[in-house]
């Protein structure tokens, strides 16, 4: 049953804070986000940095609303410029509304040419900061902005405590003084949003954290990985948590090691995971194929960045769908999933761990830099309640590890726990695991491995379906947020719209998807890559009518609801 499409998107505000190296744009953004949470808003923060390894210019982009948010908006309603050095780098990333003011301190230089038509709000931050011991301009600016936005000063102070608390009392005191200095001189005179409903039960976390949490919920207790942007934070969050939970994280020498290490951990009975990004995923394909052939469950998180090759490590794109679906040599059925938003990372990862365990195969989960590194205020993410576990109990000795069963799933005894010993093998084998080059064994094992993946009852979670209009927007992964919001706008504008957001990409639930598509007259497949990877995949599976259209646009800029609405409108 498709849910109803939520009514027209709630009012929201988007703020960008920019500055050069050391100006503290991200700190200000983080405090603002925490303050917004305290004040009862939902919100989302992304960051962007220049090419320098560290200390280069950076920007924090914050969007908030009394209702949950899943993507960035079309444009920014306020620009807070902490200085103007290298500002041009962010021009493309920060489209301003024509009436959006620029808030800045004229003591720090001229407003750049490109902004000359924006309304200006000038404040003497530098001077005020100088008057405070340890005073910092970014915090004074934040105080000003908070006041203009109508936030209570206490909320900002709570934010300071959250973000800077670990730096000690002196820092916090000085920061609070700065906030107040910026705040006191203002009246709230920017567009104001409907009053939010504060709820202390809400969470503030990143997608990488949510993904890690979901994995732990799914039972993962062993992780081996090699650092890579933008997956590292997921691992960094996991390392101490695993230890507390009686698990372990092993930093591998490379990705070939990490994928094979988790095969070892999983063979030993522990649900196991690795996380990487495109280049690392490429290196893992052989190991993932071994997981498929030896039927050893593992979860591989690919936090996608701009490709191909080294690409743009710090920016988001959805261009690893093809390698995830098709990147294994031989006929190698496996699972591919993608979370639909930051909160959904928790659900999707938990479900993916369970599916991998249940089906004794590899699950590749496609998150991305946007989901992974953005932080959000959201309602606590729900758990996946379906119990999915590994079938361990075997009866026979010698063990028929690759027994032909109706489901295709065979018992997988655990070393040290069962006398039904066996040798797992990536060579083609018979039921007992003995290498075989006979056609009948190959065919039977191929069919078994396919049957278990394709025949499983995945339930309703394979996609989120909302609305029922003849206009149908199909998407996957992190584009889902912008697509959802675009659909709401189209619907609000009188265009009944349906959205189908795929969470389970392989195996494709063909029949369910066909049913969900019934009656759709105009179809758009929307994704953030150049070549329309999902579009071609769906055509390959013969589920799309010939008139379906592809709207595919590569990174590094995020998909925005407005551009989707425009693209759809121009075609219908």
């Amino acid at each position, binding site marked *: 049953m498709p849910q109803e499409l939520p009514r027209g998107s709630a009012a929201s505000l988007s703020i960008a804070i920019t500055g050069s190296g050391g100006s503290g744009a991200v700190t200000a953004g983080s405090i603002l986000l925490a303050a917004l949470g305290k004040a009862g808003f939902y919100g989302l923060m992304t960051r962007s940095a220049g090419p320098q390894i560290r200390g280069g210019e950076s920007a924090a982009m914050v969007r908030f609303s009394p209702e949950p948010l899943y993507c960035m908006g079309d444009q920014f309603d306020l620009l807070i410029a902490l200085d103007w050095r290298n500002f041009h780098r962010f021009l493309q990333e920060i489209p301003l509304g024509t009436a959006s003011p620029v808030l800045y301190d004229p003591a720090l230089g001229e407003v750049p040419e490109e902004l000359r038509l924006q309304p200006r709000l000038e404040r003497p931050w530098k001077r005020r900061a100088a008057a405070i011991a340890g005073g910092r301009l970014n915090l004074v600016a934040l105080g000003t902005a908070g006041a203009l936005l109508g936030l209570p000063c206490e909320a900002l102070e709570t934010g300071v405590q959250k973000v800077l608390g670990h730096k000690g009392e002196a820092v916090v005191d000085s920061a609070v003084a700065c906030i107040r200095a910026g705040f006191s001189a203002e009246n709230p005179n920017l567009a104001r949003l409907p009053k939010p409903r504060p709820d202390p039960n809400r969470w503030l976390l990143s997608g990488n954290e949510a993904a890690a949490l979901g994995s732990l919920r799914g039972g993962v207790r062993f992780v081996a990985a090699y650092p890579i942007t933008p997956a590292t934070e997921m691992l960094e969050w996991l390392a101490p948590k695993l230890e*507390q*939970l009686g698990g372990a994280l092993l930093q591998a020498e490379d990705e070939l090691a990490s994928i*094979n290490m988790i095969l070892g*951990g999983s063979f030993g*009975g522990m649900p196991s995971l690795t996380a990487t990004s495109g280049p690392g995923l490429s290196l893992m394909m052989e*190991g993932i194929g*071994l997981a498929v052939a030896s039927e050893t469950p593992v979860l591989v998180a690919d936090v996608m960045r701009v490709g191909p090759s080294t690409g743009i490590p710090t920016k988001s794109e959805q261009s690893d769908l093809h390698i995830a679906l098709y990147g294994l040599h031989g006929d190698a059925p496996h699972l591919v999933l993608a979370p639909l938003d930051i909160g959904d990372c928790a659900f999707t990862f938990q479900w993916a761990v369970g599916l991998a365990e249940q089906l004794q195969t590899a699950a590749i989960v496609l998150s991305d830099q946007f989901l992974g590194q953005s932080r959000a205020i959201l309602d606590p993410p729900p758990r996946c309640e379906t119990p999915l576990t590994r079938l361990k109990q075997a009866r026979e000795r010698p063990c028929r590890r690759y027994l032909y069963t109706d489901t295709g799933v065979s018992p997988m005894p655990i070393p040290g726990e069962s006398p039904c010993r066996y040798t797992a093998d990536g060579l083609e084998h018979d039921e007992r695991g003995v290498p075989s080059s006979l056609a009948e064994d190959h065919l039977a094992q191929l069919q078994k491995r396919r049957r278990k993946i394709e025949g499983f009852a995945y339930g309703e979670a394979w996609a989120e379906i909302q609305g029922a209009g003849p206009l149908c927007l199909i998407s996957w992964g992190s584009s889902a947020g912008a697509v959802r919001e675009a659909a709401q706008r189209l619907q609000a504008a009188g265009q009944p719209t349906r959205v189908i957001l795929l969470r389970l990409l392989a195996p494709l639930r063909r029949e369910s998807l066909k049913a969900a598509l019934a009656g759709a007259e105009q179809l758009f497949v929307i994704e953030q890559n150049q070549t329309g990877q999902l579009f071609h995949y769906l055509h390959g599976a013969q589920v799309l009518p010939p008139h379906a259209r592809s709207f595919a646009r590569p990174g590094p800029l995020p998909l925005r609801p407005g551009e989707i609405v425009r693209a759809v409108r121009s075609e219908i």
Partner: protein
Amino acid sequence: MATIPTPSLRAKDYKSQIPPVWCPGCGHFAVLSALTKAFAYLKLPKDQLALVSGIGCSSRLPAYLDTYGFHGVHGRALAVAAGLKTARPDLIVIAVGGDGDGFSIGGNHFLHACRRNMDFTYIVMDNEVYGMTKGQASPTTQPDWTRSKLTPHGTGVRRFQPPAIALAAGASFIARGFSGDPTGLSKLFVEAIQHPGFAFVHVLSPCQTFRPEQRAWKQQVHPCSLGTAEDPARAAELIHRDDGMALGVLYAQQLPVWQPKLTQRTSLATIEEAFRL
């Protein structure tokens, strides 16, 4: 399922029913036997033994044992073993393979396994050739061996010295055995399995088919007379002087073993609390 207490097992009880694919006379047969003798001597429970390997003639060994086994992909046995041992410190983990598997494609994992010093054993059956792919030069092949069509004038590349590299990488136990000396080999396996930490056993295991000249090894091997210096610098000198034919323990040291504890100290619910606003 609780493990049934192991009655006294004989060496042959550790063998599986699967007939080896090895050529008659292949050195790997003796490694298999010596291993079962070591298991029997140490009274190791079969359910607790996990043999891990890559790809190659030598890497086929796990299936010939009636223990747990993981026959993975080429070159990655040590990574699988490291993961398995981290997750399951209670198991007796033994990685096995060939010189191609371990020193060519698997060289990086060899370096890092030596450094990491986890408590498992690594047995390399070195026949100085890629047997499985029909006779190409491996890292341990003599530079002037011209029998491979891939390197018709020989590789011209100095040989990989497994013990010297293991020592430089930080290994804590290094021994050399010979499949023509099954009793000695079996003893080395016993010591290696008992050694707390990463134990590397370099086994000279001739390839009948592609290196028939290795039959002469019987005459060339000799007991190691280096002594086992405790001081790694001194040991390094001695091992660099090794002629590659010395049998015995070349180096043994007690060094810190890497192994996380795996004891739960908190609940996931507590961890989740931290996300609340």
